[in-house]
């Protein structure tokens, strides 16, 4: 799918950034910060801690950028790093969220391979009123569903999404479908 092509794009951006291309780095940051931020927020971190997680994740990539023998899977690496940093901060803050989202997905996964799910890239103009409806419906969802849909919506690729959730790509499907269905029903009420 187109999503996978975009993930390959991340790898290319890293190679260019390593060569000193600041614009490529900026594009990588703009493409992935939404996912990293969403991961941190799904761990219940406040804005300050979430900002730390995003910044630390980028700094980790900078640290290893020269040593990257194989820049493949940069998107996945970013998501895993953000999750690990979020977990560390959440623990230091005494929160008990870690892994909750992944557990939910695991419990409801039935082993089927999910087909082309996740995250359409096209932009849709939203009337303000409609946006408010969607926001209200999302806020009424159980927080695990809300965060799952959020990560699906902002992940630039399947691989990054799976890494952000900490589960295999194929396991996301059933839970995602159920959460999306609940959201759609709330919107048509």
């Amino acid at each position, binding site marked *: 799918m187109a999503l996978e092509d975009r993930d390959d794009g991340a790898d290319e951006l890293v190679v260019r950034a390593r060569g000193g291309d600041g614009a490529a780095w900026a594009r990588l940051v703009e493409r992935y910060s939404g996912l990293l931020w969403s991961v941190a927020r799904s761990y219940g971190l406040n804005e300050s801690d979430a900002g730390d997680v995003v910044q630390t994740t*980028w700094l980790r990539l900078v640290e290893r950028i020269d040593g990257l023998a194989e820049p493949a899977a940069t998107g996945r690496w970013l998501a895993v790093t953000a999750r690990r940093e979020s977990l560390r901060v959440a623990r230091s803050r005494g929160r008990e969220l870690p892994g909750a989202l992944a557990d939910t997905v695991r419990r409801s996964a039935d082993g089927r391979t999910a087909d082309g799910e996740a995250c359409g890239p096209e932009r849709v103009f939203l009337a303000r009123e409609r946006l408010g409806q969607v926001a209200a419906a999302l806020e009424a969802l159980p927080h695990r569903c809300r965060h799952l849909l959020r990560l*699906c919506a902002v992940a630039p690729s399947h691989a990054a999404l799976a890494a952000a959730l900490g589960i295999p790509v194929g396991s996301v499907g059933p839970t995602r479908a159920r959460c999306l269905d609940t959201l759609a029903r709330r919107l048509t009420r």
Partner: protein
Amino acid sequence: MTEDELFAQVRAAFHALDPVPGEVLAAGRSALGLRVPGAGVAGLVRDRARRPGGGGLRGGGTALRALTFAAPGRVVEADVSGSGRYREIAGRIVPGVPALVRVRLLGTAPGELTDRADEAGQFAFPRVPEGLFSLYFQLPDGTSIVTSWIRL
């Protein structure tokens, strides 16, 4: 409505509800500028809490954390004490060399502090603003090492 359309709306809703702050994006963009070409990276291998007075590199005081970073052939130990806006850092590089040591800082008070390690590799920074920090070592043989970024 197609699924893609619905996800586009979810994305737009979260963008309105909880956007990535502009300063977080700006910090990410500027991160590439913190690269030290050619420097070896010493990753964090241990982060232990210590009781006040519990035998750190410096006896007594209020040592809160004992950090250990490792790079190939080189270890950096740093005891971090104090609370509030400033920390005291006392550490050493092993094997000991009289390296130039720089504290790199991000956050409320970005900047750098510099010290020179003694022959045993020991160094100290008595007043380091809290925030993300990394140590940079310029070794006598011309090589350099940076420690992985960590929040004080």
